[in-house]
């Protein structure tokens, strides 16, 4: 496979640290799924997008939901359409051929695709443990059965599998045993500045410095339930930049506008507003 020789080195909109790049390359070479954990906003999902962009491979995203069953991710037997066809018979599908009514789910799509794909399984922790274990079996064997037509679907090309988890639950041991693991820590100020440069190439450095400073101080407030992450910071900067009355100096004076962009929960917001108005944060 020529695709194996490709290696990953970052993408346009994504700032990658060396360590993570190495881990991605090792996982691709070992053909093992890579499990990424980390608090929200550390770019777990973005990584898969970046790999896809960088290696020019199609990306298939499976967004896991709590009610999801494994079969939903593999294939769907569209009984309703078949019932409709059998009663009214106005389609080109052959009602006696069940295979016409099988639709591939996201994992199925990744297996049957003509080329090697990136399969992103997002927020696996939402589903229950049975789902996770069963899924790993499928990804291990690289094949699954469609019971209705008694057919085995094997992967034409082994997809590159990226799994993300929001660091709430620990996943089960057999699951972990079959993945490589990496934990993405929250970026430090230096890294954050690089990330901001990627998003706003022409940003005023004074604005960036004071915004990053204030941002990290706000993150450290006590008793905040949902701490602002990279996404919030980027949106906040966007808001600051679009406000013609705003001057970067004001941040240094402890005048912090648009706190609502950073704090999404009303309790957190009140706490932040209180702290900011009580004492200067700089």
């Amino acid at each position, binding site marked *: 496979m020529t695709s194996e020789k490709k290696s990953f080195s970052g993408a346009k909109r994504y700032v990658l*640290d*060396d*360590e993570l790049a*190495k*881990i991605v*390359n*090792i*996982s691709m*070479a*070992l053909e*093992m799924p*890579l*499990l990424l*954990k980390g608090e929200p906003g550390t770019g777990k999902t973005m990584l898969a997008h970046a790999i896809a962009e960088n290696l020019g491979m199609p990306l298939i995203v499976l967004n896991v939901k709590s009610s999801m069953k494994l079969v939903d991710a593999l294939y769907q037997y569209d*009984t*309703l359409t*078949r*019932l409709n066809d*059998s*009663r009214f018979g106005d389609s080109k599908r052959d009602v006696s051929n069940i295979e016409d009514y099988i639709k591939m789910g996201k994992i199925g799509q990744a297996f049957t695709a003509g080329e090697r794909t990136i399969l992103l399984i997002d927020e696996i922790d939402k589903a229950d443990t049975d789902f996770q274990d069963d899924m790993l079996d499928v990804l291990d064997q690289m094949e699954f059965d469609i019971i209705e037509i008694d057919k085995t679907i094997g992967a034409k090309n082994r997809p590159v599998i990226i799994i993300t988890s929001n*660091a*709430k*639950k*620990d996943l089960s*041991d057999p699951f*972990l*045993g079959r*993945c*490589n*693991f*990496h*934990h993405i*820590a929250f*970026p*430090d100020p*230096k*890294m954050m500045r*690089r990330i901001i440069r990627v998003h706003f190439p022409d940003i005023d450095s004074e604005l960036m410095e004071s915004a990053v400073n204030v941002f990290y101080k706000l993150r450290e407030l006590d008793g905040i*339930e949902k701490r602002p992450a990279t996404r919030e910071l980027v949106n906040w900067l966007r808001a600051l930049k679009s406000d013609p009355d705003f001057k970067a100096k004001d941040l240094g004076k402890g005048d912090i506008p648009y706190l609502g962009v950073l704090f999404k929960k009303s309790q957190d917001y009140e706490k932040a507003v209180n702290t900011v108005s009580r004492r200067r944060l700089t």
Partner: protein
Amino acid sequence: MFIGFFYKLKEAGIPVSPTSFLTLHKALSRGLVSSLDDFYTASRAVLVKSERYFDLFDQVFAHHFEGAEMPDYEGVELDELARSLLESWLKDPKTLASALDLDESEIAKLTPDELIEYFKKRLKEQKERHDGGGRWIGTGGTSPVGHSGNHPGGMRVGGGSRNRSAVKVAMERRYRDYSLDGPLTQAMVGEALKRLRNMIPAGPKNRVNVDETIYQTMKNAGEIEIVFDRVLKDRLKIVIAIDNGGWSMDPYVLVVQTLFDYARAQFKDLKIYYFHNTVYGTIWQDPSRYKKPQKIEEFARFDPETRLVLVGDASMAPYELMASDGSIHIEERSGKPSLECLKFLAKNFRHSVWLNPMQSNMWGYTQTISVIGRIFPMFELSIDGLEKAVAHLMAK
């Protein structure tokens, strides 16, 4: 190759599996690893499956490849010292101030946390001087000064990651905050408690099961067959009793408060009570333990399937537990020793646990802890302990 390293990881308590060790060798034999740096990233990604063990891994790695000193229990000792310091501070600020070369008024300005931090810093300096800075002896080329544990977060991670050696990275112990004995956060507590959910179908069959209906209709050759289900409901009842009195619990109040905040949101039928040190005839529904008393005899009327969770440090004078008029509050005279009351509760509720915020290796030093531990299964109030406690509560 590296079998010694593998066993060291295992001994340090990281759950490493032989399979993953073989995977690592696969990576090695394919030439994916060409330097020690690569080996660090590769072995961590393949062998260690939770960020809670990253810190331990870093320590073992540094030890194995550079001969850095293995972690000892210094941290624990420090915490214990700090705690006793706090106690003496409460009793006698003046002596302490002079012992620390500080003015009494200055000490009064510090919060307890700041005081402990200050104290730890002083203690470490002291140590350094005595030991002659020998903590990282044998580290070869790496600079011992910046890494001697004085500034755990001293060197920053991120941007300039290119030229640092893996051992230096490992020595930085970046993942300390994620390690097992890291702080208990609301999210973790919430996740642990979520497993207490016990969904069972209840009530009339009045919800259409669409999938099943379609399936049965197909089986029926297209004749409509509607399938109904019962609604899932959480029927689990929980009683939490928190020891919120006395300064011996003070350092833990925040942790317990977290537990308590989350508990509110998790269950429908949840009762919270308060007590001081241990349970006598009465416990209270209000945190001030004054307005709404509840006789514990009335707990007999509760559903025996109710899960009882007691939170407290279980540390008190033995007579408070054993004597029939042991309560330090004069109005609390039930005539029964507290021990009997606890046994009554334990008998009444099949599923009960006692969560203790003290570290479990300290339990042996307090008599009352082991006495209560024989009545209620006792777990540490930490992520691991909570998970074990929940597993115990949900056991049949």
